[in-house]
């Protein structure tokens, strides 16, 4: 059982990243820290996707002058690139909105800057 841990290390790291980011999002009141938590969660999920494609001893998935042996899967790498780009857009939008919230309510605390409840 212990010999599986080095093989599964990327998945453990991804799970740790997602877990810590959920902790940040749930328990930290500062809006900027909340956005950092979401960025960390995006990194965790991207790491999980890339790690899925790894094949032991594999090389880059390029057919030109390919060395013999297995190749890692290219599809998760494409999914990860798409996901990185989408998360850049989402983070930019979130940061813009937080700037405006700060200008209106003069506070970055998620409890003090809320105006709507119930």
């Amino acid at each position, binding site marked *: 059982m212990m010999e599986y841990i080095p093989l599964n290390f990327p998945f453990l790291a991804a799970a740790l990243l997602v877990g810590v980011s959920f902790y940040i999002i749930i328990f930290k009141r500062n*809006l900027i820290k*909340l956005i950092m938590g979401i960025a960390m969660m995006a990194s965790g999920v991207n790491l999980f996707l890339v790690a899925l494609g790894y094949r032991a001893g594999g090389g880059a998935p390029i057919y030109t002058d390919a060395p013999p042996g297995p190749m890692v*899967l290219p599809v998760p790498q494409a*999914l990860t690139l*798409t*996901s990185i780009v989408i998360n850049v857009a*989402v983070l930019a939008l979130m940061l813009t909105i937080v700037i405006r919230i700060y200008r209106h309510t003069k506070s970055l605390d998620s409890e003090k800057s*809320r105006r*709507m409840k119930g």
Partner: protein
Amino acid sequence: MAALITHSPILIIAIPLFAAFLTLPIGMASKKARNALVIVSLAFVAFLVFALARDISINGIHVYTLGATSPDLTIPTGVMVPVRIILEVDGMSILMAIIWSIVALAAAIFSLSHIASETGQNRFYTLLLLMVTGGFGMMFTGDLFNLFVFLEITSISGAALIAFRTRSADTQEGGFKYIVVSAIASLMVLFAIGLLYGQYNLLNIGALAQVIQYTTSDMIALALLIIAFTIKAGMVPLHLWLPDAYSVAPASITGMLLITSHTCMYAAFRVCFTLYGGMLDTPVVGWIIIAFGLLSMFVGVTMALRQKDVMRFMSYHAISQLGYMWVGIGVGLAVLGNAELVGIGGYGRDAMSGGIFHILNDAMYMPLLFFIGGALFQCTGTRDLTKMGGLAHKLKWTTMLFIIGTLCISGIPPLNGFSSKILIYESVYQFHPILAITGIIVSILILASFAKAFHSAFMGAELPGYKAVKEVPRSMIIAMVILAAGIVFITLFPSLIVDWTIHPAADALIDPEGAYITAVTGAIP
């Protein structure tokens, strides 16, 4: 014309996308040309959607492969699995597309006057058309990762549109809550897609449905997918962000965001019924959905009774109506294993037809009610019901449309709300009586809450502060009348609508012979 219908799935997604990018330069040149571009492109897309709907009712599932030599070539020669991006349109997808095209057209016409006094209108219409693209993409896609991408497109443009009125603080708060919830839900969807891909090395929904077995990782992926889609579709207890976001957006955008919620509900059902097929624990998942649906119905309407803000009031009613759909289709899911109950005449199929019919009806009257809330905001300058009164003297058209909306949402015969609600009550009563009883109690409370809102906003003597109020501009009335015309059409011909659109949609979800899978893979091995 035949070529137009063959290529219509990609055209329906591509035309709003190109129109979105053209809106910015054309808008800088002339306002009237930009308005004409938006309306004409949405009207053309609606025409294409109806033509595709007619083609699907004649010829069955419509598959479109992007980038292949012919649109039907889903599996190239020498390859074992579908390899390209495949758009697959069946009865349920085209019903959602019909709804989306009508509501998007009405929302665009409504926006012509509603945001006429704001700056940055070019960007508003660009974002609106991008949201339309995202919605159509989510409905037509046959591919899990494509679903994620279009879900993100819809969420990002929706959040930017909620925060459009940057003068007020509450719009920014609503937009922030929407984008945070959407980002977390989408990342969890991507995580579940990764889990499924890691096991089966496939992303296509039809191909996955063929090979999926219900292992432990699949159970976790199912839980993540269902909960991530239901948090965006406003299921209690995950609904807490919905009133904050939907009440502050411009009213036309709230109507479109509601249909986005319906689309996320459709995605959840696509996962439960088509992706997992008969493999999942249908009684367990069905009862989970029914329990949350009952909670949504009841909590939605009891919270709505307390609200003083008119758009927040409508948002809680939207949550409650979504609960009806969850219950209807959840009953269908719970009895999916029993072939006789989901065949023609069984109460499983009737419950699903009731839930899907309620999606159609809700998409007609709920945006109408949101538009009326926006009209009230434009006329009186406030969303607060405690300050309004006696508006029926001045806003005659708005009052008439509000009465029609109230009667529809409460399920008063002969309007369309009654047709779908009676179908849900009669069929879920046979599953378990408590569901129908809760539904009827919630209907009574809905009528009570709308009577309260109607009295406080429209009835009474004319208040001195509102002497200068005039009727809303003509394009807003036209948008609301489009939706009211849809309501009247469904009212007069419910059986026609059910036979043409609803029963094919329910049968497409139940799919006893696996038509969705064979359309992509060519043959069941």
